[in-house]
């Protein structure tokens, strides 16, 4: 098995002078600063020779004190080894520009677009640097830079002025006040590129094609994102996807809240599975502090995270079934009834049904109440029998097979290349689960299998989720047997100012691989928090997957990916 120091020595010997600075944090984490001109060769070496075939993400950091900006590329592997390489590329702050990796790795496209629109770092060689999360009129303000002074308040209704456009529609425009222009917070000239609609309409080739809007407001979507499909009759020729409708700027907000206050914001990224988000954040901070979590707290965390996974899969699958079956569909109601018992269990421990704010630095907030073990086991036995019934039901349903078999199939190679993770990747046959790849808490001591599918189509994705629920029930059973008594918080008090350092922590969110990159500069607020969410890659994959299918299949595919746009947009 490769480990981080072997990777480092291999890169240093193959490309001398490329690695300017390095730090081996552990067997599985390698931090290296790379010469900006050699980043492409380093990445090629990593992916060709050392099996780093998963480009996980990229983060931009603004080191205003050092007058430079940094792009951190995160490379991992799909199961060949467990090393995570964090490659930093520095660029001067006056004219930041970095070589783009979008031609090497298909899924680097969106990460680089986001860094460009938020920090102003331009990527040479990128196929199309258009804004992703921000609206067209906000490009040029570079909001996540440290010296950003704020933007005109776009929510003021009285300032909106109606204006007819050339196409005959009316649009509402808010002009900045003279004070805002003087303060320098309004970009004077926008870079010249076509807007989203203009880019879409360029693709219309004939009169029989039309652009159908499935979003941002649509009955099918679990959250707002713009999905426009270019249809001819009932066949989809191309799909366009735009995000950012629920962008709350959580990463920037967290730079202005103390460490403990920031925890409440992680809850609200993916609110259906907020415990995994909490865990990711607290785990990263605990890595920076070097804090050991007591064993009972670890077991409680694992139990609650698996319960959260069960209820997230129940609602994800159930909601998806209403998309293809109408609201009166009976098994959907049963799934919600089951979910209710799981949510009540979680509520009895954390006190809230949805946004838990439960995991704390060094432990958990509350202990398990009395009688939790018995209630949990009886509920889980019931859910287990019902989940097996669901699996059987979908196995024998011919209409289900007609709708879901061979629809939206992703081969293992494509799935690995586009960077998705979680149930869609596992349905394609790749057994990649963070609980085995990057084990945290007590997962190494527990015995569970990773559920995989065969063809990667919609039916397999639903199947993988249901099987994962059964595995989670098995994990919770083991935890309830083994949980020791003891303290639920670490003894050393967490200081108000976390010492300087950085950490990258990964968890298995119900939707895939979630990672948080936290940088502390010794203050009482985080310096930078970057969230690598699983749904980001899922949404990026959606447009090419939707080419050539029927409109009804668009619903089946987009729904079976179980995306939560709130997490992608942060």
């Amino acid at each position: 098995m490769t480990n981080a120091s072997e990777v480092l020595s291999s890169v240093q010997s193959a490309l001398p002078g490329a690695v300017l600075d390095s730090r081996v944090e552990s067997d599985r984490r390698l931090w290296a600063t790379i010469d900006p001109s050699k980043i492409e060769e380093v990445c090629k070496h990593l992916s060709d020779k050392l099996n780093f075939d998963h480009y996980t993400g990229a983060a931009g950091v603004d080191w205003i004190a050092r007058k430079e900006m940094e792009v951190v590329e995160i490379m991992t592997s799909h199961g060949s080894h467990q090393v995570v390489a964090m490659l930093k590329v520095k660029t001067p702050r006056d004219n930041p520009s970095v070589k783009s990796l979008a031609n090497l790795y298909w899924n680097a496209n969106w990460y680089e677009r986001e860094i460009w629109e938020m920090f102003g770092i331009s990527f040479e060689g990128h196929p199309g640097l258009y804004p992703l999360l921000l609206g067209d009129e906000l490009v040029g303000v570079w909001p996540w830079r440290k010296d950003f002074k704020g933007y005109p308040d776009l929510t003021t209704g009285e300032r909106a002025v109606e204006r007819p456009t050339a196409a005959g529609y009316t649009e509402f425009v808010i002009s900045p006040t003279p004070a805002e222009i003087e303060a320098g917070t309004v970009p004077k000239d926008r870079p010249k590129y076509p807007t989203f609609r203009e880019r879409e309409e360029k693709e219309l080739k004939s009169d029989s094609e039309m652009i159908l809007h499935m979003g941002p407001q649509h009955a099918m979507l679990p959250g707002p994102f713009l999905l426009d499909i270019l249809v001819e009759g009932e066949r989809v020729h191309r799909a366009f996807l735009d995000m950012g409708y629920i962008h709350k700027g959580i990463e920037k907000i967290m730079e202005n809240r103390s460490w403990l206050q920031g925890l409440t914001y992680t809850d609200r990224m993916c609110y259906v599975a907020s415990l995994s988000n909490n865990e990711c954040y607290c785990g990263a901070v605990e890595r920076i502090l070097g804090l050991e979590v007591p064993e009972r707290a670890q077991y409680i965390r694992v139990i609650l995270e698996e319960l959260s996974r069960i209820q997230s899969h129940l609602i994800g699958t159930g909601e998806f079934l209403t998309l293809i079956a109408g609201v009166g569909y009976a098994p959907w109601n049963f799934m919600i009834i089951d979910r209710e018992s799981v949510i009540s269990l979680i509520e009895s421990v954390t006190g809230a049904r949805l946004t838990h704010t439960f995991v704390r630095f060094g432990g958990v907030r509350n202990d398990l109440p009395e009688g939790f073990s018995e209630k949990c086991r009886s509920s889980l036995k019931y859910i287990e029998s019902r989940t097996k019934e669901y699996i059987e039901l979908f196995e024998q349903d011919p209409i289900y097979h007609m709708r879901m078999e061979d629809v939206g199939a992703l081969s293992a190679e494509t799935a690995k290349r586009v960077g998705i993770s979680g149930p869609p990747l596992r349905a394609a046959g790749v057994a990649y689960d963070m609980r085995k790849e990057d084990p945290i808490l007590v997962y190494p001591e527990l015995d569970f299998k990773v559920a995989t599918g065969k063809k990667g189509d919609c039916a397999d994705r639903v199947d993988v989720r249901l099987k994962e629920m059964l595995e989670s029930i098995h994990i919770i059973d083991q935890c309830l047997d083994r949980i020791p008594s003891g303290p639920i918080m670490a003894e050393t008090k967490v200081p108000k100012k976390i010492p300087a350092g950085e950490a990258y922590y990964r968890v298995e969110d119900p939707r895939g691989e979630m990672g948080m990159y936290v940088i502390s500069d010794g203050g009482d607020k985080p310096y930078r928090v970057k969230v690598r969410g699983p749904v980001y890659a899922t949404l990026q994959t959606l447009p090419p997957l939707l080419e050539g299918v029927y409109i009804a299949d668009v619903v089946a595919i987009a729904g079976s990916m179980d995306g939560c746009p709130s997490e992608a947009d942060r």
Partner: protein
Amino acid sequence: MLKRKMLKNWGWPLKVARGIEVTRLYPEVMMELPAAERGIHELDATTCIGCGSCARICPNSCIEMVPCRYGNPLKNKKMQFPQIDYGRCMFCGLCVDECPAECLKMGKKVTMAGWERQDIVRGPEKIAVKKFSEKEVAALEAEAKRIAAEKAAAKKAAAKEGAKKPGAAAAAGGANNKAAKKKTAPAGEGSPEATEKPSEKTAEVPAAAKEAKAEAKTKEGGAT
């Protein structure tokens, strides 16, 4: 093809129909909430020390410390208590975790309504479940005043004693000033004690009686 295998599908609605309806009969029957539920806050005004940690930690700045009559002036010097704006509160519970006196808790009440935004800003009178009555507050205030008066008197006496001694020491020389001051300080402490003791003794008995009465009253208040 379509017809043979689908009997299981038709069985599901019947299965659900056989079970009991799960609709919650709100508002006639309210939900059973667990003990750990994070609902509307419950403040124990008798133990709140007015430190403001809850206001500082709140991520949404919902908590403001406002003056209120019903607390303990001995513990809460500025007599300030949390006022929570429930229009902004997200029930995260960080204020409860930060409270050093463990007087702010979250209860099981989860419903609240008002006609305007001001109606759901709840001050300490509304969220306090334990507070002192007027008489008890008056008694505690009197107690506080008495202690403050005693302290002021003690300070005055110490200043007077200190004023007498430094007069002689200054004549002795500046170099001995510090030593003299040091001497006078313990001397000052000693003499006010000496002077205070008789006054304390005379004051103590009625004070003790008052204290006993006040305590009995608070005990009653707590019991009711």
